[in-house]
C-alpha cells in the first residue's frame, strides 16, 4: 500500500503553479536571481561609449552633451526636455525605477577594439547596466556583439549601415537611427523629381561595410526610378585626396556623382569634386549634380560652402517644428548655446527610450527591457510616430531629405529640410534582401 500524499487536487494545483511559472516572462524569473550588473543601491549606472578622440571626437562630444542632458532630465533636473512631449508617461523625473541615474563614459576612438575594451571596462569595472553611443557602424556591430555576450542592453548611437539591425542584429541591441535602405528609399523620389529619371550615376564608395550597404541602397532605389549606374568605384577608407577618383568621372558620361562617404572622407571627396568644377559642367545636356546620401551637420560644417544645393538624407534636424524637436532644441540650446546635431538627438532619445522601457517593464533585466522595447510605438520624440520593430530592433519613422542651404545665417544653419519622407515609404520587410541574414537570437540577461 502506498503512502503517497499525491491527490488529484494537489496534482492540478502543482501543475497550475508550475505552468504559471513557466509562462512568466524569462526576465521575471531571472529577476529573482541576478542579471548582469543588477543595481543594488539607490543608483543605476549607464555607460556612454562615444568617440572622445579620433576623427569623430566632435560628434562624440555632442553625443556626450546629449547624454548628460538626458541624465539631468531623467533625474528631474532642467526643463524636462522630451519627457514633456514623449507619448509614454512612464518616466517621472525621479531617475529610473526610483534609482538616481549616474553614468560613466568610455572612448571608442572609432575603433572596434578600443570601443569593445571601453564597453567591457564600463560593464565589468563600473557596473554599467546599459551601454549606448558611438559614431560608426563597425563600432556599433562590435559593441553590440559584446553587450549580447555580457548580458547588457546596447542602445546604438549613430550607426547607419543596414547590417547593424540586419545580418549583425542581436537580441540585446536596439537602433533608433535610420539606415542605408531608408536613405535610398527617401532620397530616390526627391532626386527623380528634381533631376529627372533619365540620369547616369557614378558612385564613389568608401571601401567598408557602411559604404557597400549605402551604395546598394541608393543604386537599387534610383535604378528602380530609371537611373542608370555607369560605374561604382571603391575608395580606400584612408584616402584623403580623391582627385584621381573624381577626375575620370566626367569621362564616364555620368551626369550625377553619388558620394557614399561619411566623415572626413565625405568632406574631402565633396570638396575635391566641387574644386574640379563638376557642378559647373553640362553633361548629356543636363547640369552635373552631386549627391551625398548621409549628411551630418558636422560634416556639412567641414565641407563649408561646398554643400550648397546638394541633396542628402538625415535622421533628424534641429529646424523641425514639431513639439518634440522644439523641446529638445530648447533644452539643448539653452544649456550649451548651440543647436544639437542628429547624433545628439538619437543618443538623447535612446537614453530616454531605455529608461522608459525599464519603467514599463519594472526591471533593469535586459530581457525585460528588450521585451518592453520590442514592438513599442511612441511619438513626441522629434521624428513623428515611431515603431521599434520587434523582428529586428530597428526604429521605423519618417526620414528627412535635406539640401545644403544656399544662404546660411550661422555655422549651424547649413542644411534645410526639403522633404519629410513618410515612414511607410521607407519601411521594408524584415527579410528584405538588403538586410537579410543573421538572427536576433535570444536575449541574454548575463549572470
Amino acid at each position, binding site marked *: 500500500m502506498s503512502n503517497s500524499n499525491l491527490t488529484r487536487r494537489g496534482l492540478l494545483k502543482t501543475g497550475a503553479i508550475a505552468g504559471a511559472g513557466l509562462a512568466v516572462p524569462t526576465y521575471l524569473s531571472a529577476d529573482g536571481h541576478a542579471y548582469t550588473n543588477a543595481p543594488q543601491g539607490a543608483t543605476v549606472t549607464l555607460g556612454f561609449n562615444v568617440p572622445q578622440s579620433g576623427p569623430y571626437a566632435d560628434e562624440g562630444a555632442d553625443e556626450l552633451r546629449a547624454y548628460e542632458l538626458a541624465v539631468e532630465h531623467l533625474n528631474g533636473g532642467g526643463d524636462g526636455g522630451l519627457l514633456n512631449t514623449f507619448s509614454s508617461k512612464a518616466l517621472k523625473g525621479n531617475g529610473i525605477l526610483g534609482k538616481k541615474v549616474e553614468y560613466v563614459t568610455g572612448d571608442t576612438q572609432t575603433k572596434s577594439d578600443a570601443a569593445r575594451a571601453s564597453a567591457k571596462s564600463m560593464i565589468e569595472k563600473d557596473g554599467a547596466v546599459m551601454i549606448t553611443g558611438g559614431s560608426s557602424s563597425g563600432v556599433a556591430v562590435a559593441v553590440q556583439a559584446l553587450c549580447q555576450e555580457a548580458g547588457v542592453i546596447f542602445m546604438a548611437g549613430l550607426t547607419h549601415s543596414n547590417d547593424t539591425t540586419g545580418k549583425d542584429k542581436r537580441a540585446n541591441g536596439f537602433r533608433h537611427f535610420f539606415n542605408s535602405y531608408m536613405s535610398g528609399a527617401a532620397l530616390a523620389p526627391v532626386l527623380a523629381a528634381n533631376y529627372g529619371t533619365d540620369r547616369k550615376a557614378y558612385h564613389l564608395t568608401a571601401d567598408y561595410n557602411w559604404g557597400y550597404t549605402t551604395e546598394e541602397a541608393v543604386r537599387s532605389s534610383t535604378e528602380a526610378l530609371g537611373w542608370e549606374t555607369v560605374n561604382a568605384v571603391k575608395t580606400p577608407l584612408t584616402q584623403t585626396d580623391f*582627385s584621381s577618383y573624381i*577626375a575620370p568621372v566626367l569621362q564616364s558620361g555620368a551626369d550625377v556623382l553619388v558620394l557614399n562617404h561619411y566623415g572626413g572622407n565625405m568632406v574631402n571627396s565633396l570638396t575635391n569634386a566641387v574644386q574640379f*568644377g563638376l557642378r559647373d559642367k553640362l553633361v548629356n545636356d543636363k547640369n552635373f549634380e552631386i549627391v551625398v546620401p548621409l549628411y551630418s551637420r558636422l560634416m556639412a560644417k567641414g*565641407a563649408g560652402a561646398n554643400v550648397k544645393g546638394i541633396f542628402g538624407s538625415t535622421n533628424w534636424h534641429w529646424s523641425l517644428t514639431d513639439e518634440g524637436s522644439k523641446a529638445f532644441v530648447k533644452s539643448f540650446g*539653452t544649456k550649451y548655446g548651440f543647436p544639437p546635431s542628429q547624433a545628439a538627438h538619437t543618443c538623447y532619445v535612446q537614453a530616454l527610450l531605455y529608461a522608459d522601457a525599464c519603467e514599463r517593464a519594472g526591471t533593469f533585466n535586459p530581457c525585460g527591457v528588450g521585451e518592453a522595447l520590442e514592438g513599442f510605438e511612441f511619438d513626441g520624440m522629434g521624428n513623428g510616430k515611431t515603431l521599434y520593430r520587434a523582428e529586428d530592433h530597428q526604429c521605423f519613422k519618417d526620414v528627412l531629405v535635406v539640401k545644403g542651404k544656399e544662404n546660411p*545665417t*550661422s555655422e549651424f544653419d547649413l542644411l534645410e529640410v526639403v522633404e519629410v519622407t513618410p515612414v511607410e515609404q521607407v519601411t521594408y520587410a524584415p527579410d528584405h534582401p538588403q538586410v537579410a541574414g543573421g538572427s536576433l537570437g535570444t536575449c541574454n540577461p548575463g549572470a
Partner: protein
Amino acid sequence: MDAIVLQILNGLDKGSAYALIALGLTLIFGTLGVVNFAHGALFMIGAFCAVTLSRILNWSYTVIDESQTDFLGNPLKVDVPYVHDWFGVQTGDTIIDWAVPLSIIFSIPVMIAIGVIMERGLIKHFYKRPHADQILVTFGLAIVLQEIIKYYYGANPIPTPAPEAFAGSYDFGAMLGFDANTIIYPYWRLVYFAFAAVIIGAVFAFLQFTTFGMVVRAGMADRETVGLLGINIDKRFTIMFGIAAAVAGLAGVMYAPINSPNYHMGMDFLVLSFVVVVVGGMGSLPGAVLAGFLLGILESFASMSIVLEFIPGINQIIIYLVAIIILLTRPRGLMGRKGVMED
C-alpha cells in the same frame, strides 16, 4: 589618351605634396642624421597657420539683427569682421578671401621658429642615440602636436577655401584638342604644382649657390672636417631644421584649400613621405623629389577604374609594391648614396 593625361596631371599634383614633405625630411636626415617622424605634424601645423590667419582676419564683433531670429527664437547675433570697419566691406572681404596666400608670409617665421625650438628643445638630445630612439621620440612629439591642435581647433575638418579668383577648373581637353570637359583640372591644384616647383627650386638654389648652402653641403658630406675648420656646423644645421620645417609648413599652407585641414592630416602623409624618402634614397634631395613625383603618378594611375578592374585593390598597395621592387633591385633607393643608413 585623355585619361592618361589627366592622371599624369593628378600624379604631378599629388607628387608635389609628397616631394615637398620628403624634401624637408631628407634635409633633416641629411644634415642632422635624424629620422624625424614629427615632420608630418609640421605639414599639419602649416595648414593650421592658414586656418589661424583666416580666423584672425575674420576676427569679429557682434551686432544684433532684430529682423532675424536664431534657433531659440532670440534676435540673431551677427558677426561683423573688424576688417570691414578698417578697410571697408569690399576690401575687407578681399583680404579675408586671400587668407591662404597671405598665410605664406605668416607661416614662414612661425614654422622656422617651431622648427628651431623643436630642434634645440628636444631633437638635439637624440643626435647620438640610435635611429629607433629618434623615431620613437619624434613620433611621440607628432602625437603631442596633433593633440594640441585638436584641443584648440577640434577634430572636425575646417574649410579653408582658396581665393575666389582660383575657383573652378581649367579645361586642358579643349586646349589639347580633346573633347571639352574630358581633361579639367582645378586652378588651385595647378597653383600648388607651380608653387611646389618654385619652393623645390629655391631650396636647391639655396644649397647650391650660397655660401651657407655650400657649408651645409660640406657638413652633410663630412661633418667632422667642417667642424675642425672652425665652422659652427651645428648652428647651421639648426637653421636647416628651421628651413625644413618652413618647407613642410608651406606645403601645408597651400594644401589647406585642397582638403579641409584636420589635426590628423600630417599622419596621413607621413608614412607615404617616408616611403618616398626611402625609394628616392636616404639623404638624397634630388631622389626625394624624383620619387615624390614618380610615386604620385603611379598612385594616380593605380586609381583608374580600368586598372582596378584588372587588379582590384592595387590602388591601396601600389606605392608599397613599387617600394619593395625598387629596394630589392636598388637597395639604396633611386639616388641613394653609399654609407647612408648602412652603419
